[in-house]
């Protein structure tokens, strides 16, 4: 019995590490090939270690523009999404009103709609409305598909929030706005931040919807897909590594803050 238990434990360990390796292998490859001292056009075989691509990070000017576009679009759409989504989440989590059921359904529908459908229908909407496609239409599209995620995370916090907290604040002399700023917002902040991170992540790597509504604006994912045929420069790996690194840092900071709160 005892040996079999040990064997089972070992198998479980091996299996666990295998899954972890499998999940992290694309990330490892991305990071690794950012250091590849490649000579040929393609960056697919390991040819030696270099820090050259970190030094020449912004040397591919089209790529730099595309990354900057993506960052600006992600930031702007995240801010808009968080403001609208928080208000929606508060309303849906706190009140029952005429149309709240339909709104809840729409939120779910927006999450489950295939991106292709959303992109194609947005394109026909913009074309028939004679709206020129550029960074603004990309932002509109990104707000549209990230909004539901902020609504869902905020609504979950609001539902778990004791309504007498806000009453207590009013009772102690706080105005409606003061109550929101000092009591409601700090209480739902984890939900708001989670929603913000989700919508930033969704925006910065979106390809499908963006490809329908971008006009002549090129974003980071669009540029990479376009460069596949001619060979993706190692700078893409470096940028990917940096974006991933920032994401990891935010996740760690969040975990530390959560531990301090608990």
């Amino acid at each position, binding site marked *: 019995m005892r040996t079999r238990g040990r064997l089972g434990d070992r198998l479980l360990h091996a299996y666990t590490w295998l899954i972890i390796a499998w999940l992290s292998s694309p990330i490892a490859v991305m990071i690794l090939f950012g250091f590849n001292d490649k000579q040929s056009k393609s960056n697919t075989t390991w040819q030696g270690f270099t820090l050259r691509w970190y030094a020449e990070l912004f040397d591919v000017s089209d790529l730099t523009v595309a990354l900057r576009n993506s960052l600006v679009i992600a930031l702007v759409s995240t801010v808009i999404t968080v403001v609208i989504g928080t208000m929606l989440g508060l309303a849906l989590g706190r009140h029952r009103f005429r149309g709240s059921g339909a709104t809840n359904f729409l939120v779910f529908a927006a999450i489950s709609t295939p991106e292709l459908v959303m992109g194609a229908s947005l394109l026909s909407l913009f074309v028939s409305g004679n709206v020129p496609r550029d960074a603004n239409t990309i932002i509109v599209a990104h707000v549209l598909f990230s909004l539901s995620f902020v609504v869902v995370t905020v609504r979950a916090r609001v539902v778990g929030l*004791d309504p007498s907290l806000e*009453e*207590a604040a*009013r*009772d*102690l*002399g706080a*105005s409606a706005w003061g109550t929101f700023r000092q*009591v409601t917002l700090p*209480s739902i902040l984890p939900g708001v931040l989670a929603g913000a991170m989700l919508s930033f992540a969704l925006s910065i790597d979106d390809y499908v919807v963006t490809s329908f509504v971008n006009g002549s604006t090129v974003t980071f994912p669009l540029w990479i897909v376009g460069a596949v045929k001619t060979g993706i420069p190692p700078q893409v790996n470096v940028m990917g590594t940096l974006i991933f690194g920032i994401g990891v840092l935010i996740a760690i900071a969040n975990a530390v803050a959560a531990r301090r709160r608990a």
Partner: protein
Amino acid sequence: MTGLSAIELEDVVKEYLSHGEVVQAVKGVTLDIAEGEFFSLLGPSGCGKTTTMRMVAGFEQPTKGLVKLHGQDVTNVPPNRRDVNMVFQSYALFPHMSVWDNVAFGLKQKRTPADEIRRRVGEMLEIVDLTGRERRRPREMSGGQQQRVALARALVNRPRALLLDEPLGALDLKLRQAMQIELKRIQREVGITFVYVTHDQGEALTMSDRIAVMNDGLVEQLADPREIYERPATAFVAGFIGTSNLLTGAAAGGVLKVGGGRVLVPGHDGDVTVTVRPEKITIGTEEPAPELSGVRGTVAEVVYLGTYNSYAVNLADGADGTVITVFEQNAHDATATAERGDSVWLSWQAQHSYVIGS
């Protein structure tokens, strides 16, 4: 009590729309709560006591009627501009703030100078015995401590009245009894009007100067604890506060013939309902003297409860199977006067029969 009115409700009605139907939670309540009074709203859940208090705090708008604080009509004044503070059933302490910031919250809203905030919060924490715990978060504290933070957070604003919504409900019995005494001490110390909502009759009797017993959206009786207990105005009050025996029948010439005996109800004729408390009744085997009320019955159950014996006595000729409860103080020896199956006489003095709603 100075006799001044701290809180007045004038024929206040509160209606809700529930599933398309109008429900009256409060059906016309008129109250006049005096300055410095410890006033309780007592009743079962759903009787409208919490709704009544929330209308005083300003969280609910009356459908009809007026709410006045110190003579001023505040019916349409929002809660943040009413000079009353509330202690919530769930305490509603701000979880992201320290004890100190929780208590200082109200003063900060009023832009009180920083040194005054420091002084008053410090004093208040001393009154509720929480000095040294300023930096704690609410969730790091016990229920009793959270309760005292909630109290301090409300009282530090020196409100004209403090509203307490079943504040001891979440505490265990020992702590609850300790907090009852504590609350009374704090109320004496700060001299503020307390309005206390509870469904616990013991709590209301222990602490209150006056009690309004509510049932089904109406005040059934408004009086001091002794009056409520000794002279309940309605059958509901008699049944809700403590244990009560009800005897009904037609009285003739000030005597109600019932249970093979008589209940003396001087000055009453016709159909009456008489209430008598179990501890006023003496149990014995001899027919009582004629100046006492006396009824006959058979002991159905004897329960030994330490400080007293409790008897359930089936009334003789009680066509409706009336059962009389009797408490016998365990003053001398631990043996009960009567046993199950014994035929007994129950007697009490005429003054302890109280005719309800006559």
